[in-house]
């Protein structure tokens, strides 16, 4: 069953990404030209493939053959391109995304007010919970914003109380959704 929050500990450094680095010229994936920013190592076909495979991945025995046929390239060529898009870091994951509510889980958005000297410790504690899937620093007095998925509201509330106890951070807002108007994380490249 669902792994308990305490048993799964992931190092946060792996996923840590300084956005300011990416917004400057140092981003290795963007090249500035007279036409503006362009993506290195990517042609129109790569972009079309990215636009195609964000959803409706063929549920069939030879999915890359089917995708290849759509673009008039061979199965092997399609596999090579998708492999490269993964190894170049454009694709984070190829798999299924679920409706957590439909699976019987509950989710919420939380905001915490954390002084800078306690930030690192607080983030480390947060990341020891497997259900915390997204965590951002934002420019606001509530400076840490994270999503929390759990098996029940009670589990999330208990975990938030534990986090407060462990870190001394008391000011955490729990802002569960009342209604969802849209979830669509597909991007047109």
């Amino acid at each position, binding site marked *: 069953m669902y*792994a308990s929050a305490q048993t799964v500990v*992931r190092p946060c450094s792996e*996923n*840590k*990404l300084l*956005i300011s680095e*990416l917004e400057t010229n140092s981003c290795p994936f963007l090249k500035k030209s007279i036409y503006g920013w362009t*993506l290195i190592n990517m042609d129109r076909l790569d972009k079309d493939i*990215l636009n195609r*495979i*964000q*959803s*409706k*991945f063929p*549920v069939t*025995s030879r999915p*890359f*053959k089917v995708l290849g046929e759509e673009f008039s390239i061979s*199965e092997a060529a399609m*596999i090579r391109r998708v*492999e490269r898009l*993964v190894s170049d*870091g*454009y*694709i*984070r994951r*190829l*798999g*299924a*995304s*679920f409706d*957590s509510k*439909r*699976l*019987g*889980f509950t989710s919420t*958005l939380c905001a915490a007010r954390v002084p800078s000297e306690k930030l690192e410790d607080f983030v480390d504690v947060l990341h020891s919970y497997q259900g915390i*899937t*997204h*965590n*951002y*620093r*934002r*420019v*606001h007095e509530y400076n840490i*914003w994270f999503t929390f998925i759990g098996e029940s509201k009670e589990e999330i509330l208990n975990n938030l109380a534990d986090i407060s106890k462990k870190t001394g951070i008391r*000011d955490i*807002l*729990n*802002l*569960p*959704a*009342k*209604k969802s*108007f*849209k*979830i669509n*994380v597909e*991007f*047109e490249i």
Partner: protein
Amino acid sequence: MFLSDLDKKIIREIQTDLSITPEPFLEIARRLDIPEETLLSKIQDLIDNGYIRRLGATLRHRRLGINANAMSVWMGSHKEVERAGTIMASFKEVTHCYERCTLPAWKYNLYAMIHGKTKEGCFEIARRISERTGLKEYKLLFSTEEFKKTSMEYF
């Protein structure tokens, strides 16, 4: 549709990475010791019944030039929010839109994640949303650091 133990095993397999090989589903079917056709039809059932929202690639959008990510938060009556949420959802730059509970310390009740190429672009989209929805009280919270971005591991 009730989730069986086999369904949960399948979910565990496909919530991580499919292998980029000619027969990725056959590999999973072998691990689960079921025929490939059974696996394919079970996955199709999970899609048709709304358990799987999307099967495909999740992009690192920042690497693709979509660098600015603003959480816009808005304030309105329940009735205003009903209408505004639908309008916000129609913007292609908005990836997520939710009505959320409020607290004494936090009065904003409608949220829209705006993705753009620049901060200015995000402000411009928010301005257009404000015009279209009539909601005047809003804020954009830009992210300055991404500490964690993963997919949930269920079961």
